[in-house]
């Protein structure tokens, strides 16, 4: 029982990353009709916002400690971060410690800016082009973005730890007499994702802006005829989608250390998620994200892998094939979307 609940939690946690990326992909696809292969790269850029902030906060001045030596036998240069110099080790240390949550604040404007620049600078020239061209150009962009990150940060993963206060595990089953020890940060990530998903949905549901966008997703031409400048709002949607992917990335860092190719690792999976959910369906993307996360978790259990060897390797793709063959438009897809 405990084990099953634990795997469900793991699934939800994995699923929340899938769902956030897929949500952004679907927003872009639903509003702009663009297949964005650079979306994984946005997730990666988000994670590297946190890395960058952490590096900036840790910028240090060097003092020479004559009593110690470095690996070459020279006097050791001791590094002290400027923030610790300015605010004292207590406050300064705390600021560095909270680098990841702090990055959320700087990541939002940065990611919206990147999204805006991408849409205005590149994507908008591709609205009328075939999907294959969109895939190719965004794929090229993804390569360029990840190579730039690699140039500056290297290929190895970079540790972005959570704040000390959020380290460790909490027994969330204690109230029910169950033993379900779960890492605090993973709980934070899940709740954060739910909040973001909720935020996006209520934004689309309750604001005029959201209504126009939803109408535009349903029928772009009609909304255009009403004299609403739908394109401008769609650009903003691109910024929003980029921010969602970026935030998913920022907060993901402490779960698994970011590296330059983490975007590509998630890209294929998120496309599968979007398609299983149904192209252009926001609830579908979220549902499929969580569903595939949970399925993947259960396929990883010893029970599953001994029953069907290698099932953990192929489960996602197997599910995608079955769903697409039995439900042609995915779980919640609309008719006529992306079928030509």
């Amino acid at each position: 029982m405990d084990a099953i609940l634990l795997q469900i939690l793991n699934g939800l946690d994995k699923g929340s990353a899938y769902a956030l990326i897929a949500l952004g992909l679907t927003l872009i696809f639903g509003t702009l009709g663009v297949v964005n292969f650079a979306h994984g790269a946005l997730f990666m850029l988000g994670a590297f916002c946190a890395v960058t902030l952490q590096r900036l906060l840790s910028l240090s001045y060097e003092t020479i400690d004559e009593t110690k030596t470095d690996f070459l036998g020279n006097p050791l240069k001791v590094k002290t971060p400027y923030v610790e110099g300015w605010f004292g080790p207590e406050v300064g240390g705390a600021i560095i410690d909270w680098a990841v949550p702090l990055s959320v604040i700087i990541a939002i404007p940065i990611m919206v800016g990147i999204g805006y620049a991408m849409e205005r600078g590149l994507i908008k020239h591709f609205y009328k082009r075939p999907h294959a061209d969109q895939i190719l150009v965004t794929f090229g962009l993804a390569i360029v973005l990840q190579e730039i990150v690699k140039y500056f940060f290297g290929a190895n993963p970079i540790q972005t730890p959570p704040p000390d206060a959020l380290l460790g595990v909490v027994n969330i089953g204690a109230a029910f007499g169950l033993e379900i020890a779960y890492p605090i940060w993973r709980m934070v990530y899940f709740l954060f994702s739910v909040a973001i998903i909720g935020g996006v949905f209520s934004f689309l549901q309750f604001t005029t802006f959201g209504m126009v966008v939803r109408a535009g997703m349903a029928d772009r031409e009609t909304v255009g005829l009403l004299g609403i400048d739908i394109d401008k709002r769609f650009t903003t949607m691109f910024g929003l989608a980029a921010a969602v992917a970026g935030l998913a990335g920022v907060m993901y860092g402490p779960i698994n250390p970011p590296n330059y190719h983490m975007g590509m690792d998630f890209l294929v999976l998120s496309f599968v998620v979007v398609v299983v959910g149904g192209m252009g369906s926001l609830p579908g993307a979220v549902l499929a994200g969580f569903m595939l996360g949970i399925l993947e978790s259960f396929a990883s259990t010893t029970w599953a892998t001994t029953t069907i060897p290698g099932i953990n390797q192929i489960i996602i793709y197997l599910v995608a094939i079955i769903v697409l063959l039995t439900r042609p438009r995915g779980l919640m897809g609309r008719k006529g979307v992306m079928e030509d």
Partner: protein
Amino acid sequence: MLGLNKKDMTLLIVVAILTLLAPFILNPFPVDSGMAQFNAGYPDLMQRFVIFGILAIGFNILFGLTGYLSFGHAAFLGVGSYAAVWMFKLLSYNVVPAILFSVILAGLFSVLIGYVSLRRSGIYFSILTLAFAQMSFALAYSVLSNPKFNLTNGETGLQVYADDPQILHRDGLPDVPHLFGWAMRDNFLELKLGGWEFTFNNGYYLCAAILLVVFYLSIRLFRSPFGLMLRAVKSNQQRLNYTGLNPKPYTLAAFIISGMYAGLAGGLLASMDPLAGAERMQWTASGEIVLMTILGGAGTLIGPVLGAGFIKYFENIFSKINDNVLHQWFSFMPDGMEDFLVFIVHPFVGKGWHLTLGILFMLVVTFLPGGLVEGGQRLGRLVRSRGKKPEDPKDPEHHPKETPHVAE
């Protein structure tokens, strides 16, 4: 001649001349000149140009004609390679059964995958093929390489071991892939002319001969009623349906043909170098095929071959330019200038070749949607509009055709 019209015949002849003289054309620089870095006329790369050309020609039959974007074509390449190596292991190092079996097995796989995937179109089709290919990769990389049932030899790649049966192997035959005793990796001629060196490799000429055959077949197919129907599928499936034609068997046939081309390429790859690695089935490998085709010009006859050559050239030549080489290039400059130029160029070559490739893709897709072929056409038009008499196009890349795929 050969059932081709004059224009196509010219194209075929040009391609034939280019492939047969490739050892000369690809080695334009003397070996000890600074530019020798850019020579591509060594057997391995020449073989790769041709083999990936075949792969791209096949992919183009599916994608260029019908518009169905398969993201799993590398799976057939992998299946073909495994099939060929298994033939080496079981029968002998003769490449004929290996290549035949790789084409047949890839054909069977494509019947299966195509039948299922073609029940959907658009991006759903792409994702289905991607899913199949990723499954094949995962199976080949780990599941099917377990010690109890080792079909693929996993990470290391399938290769021939001394204790393999090789029931048709006889003494006197080379212990490497061969065509009735003619070893693939041997060079039948090495020519040294002044500062130049040219290598004529057995394997390359086998691949080149096969390329010419399949290129010829693809021209015939492009000009045939079948090819026309495939283009009609891409253009308007609704109209095709209401014209009394069933798009399904046409697309399935195109899928199978292109799968068999990929299998052939896989078989040839294994025949040139008898090792089949699972990585050639990964989705990024499929992506590379797509990139080749679109970069060269999807739907055109020669485009995919150019695209394949372009990418392989990048992968093999650009990735080998290291800082040491850069310093030597710029060594004639004053020191500060030299360091500055090396600093500027450094991120784009050697380990940065992915970056350059990514930038190039974006530029080509943005400004030349028809790929390199369109670039050639524009160049041709530019030359003509300047009032010069248009030259008879020698190079198919600069072939000034109005539309790339008009069957006349």
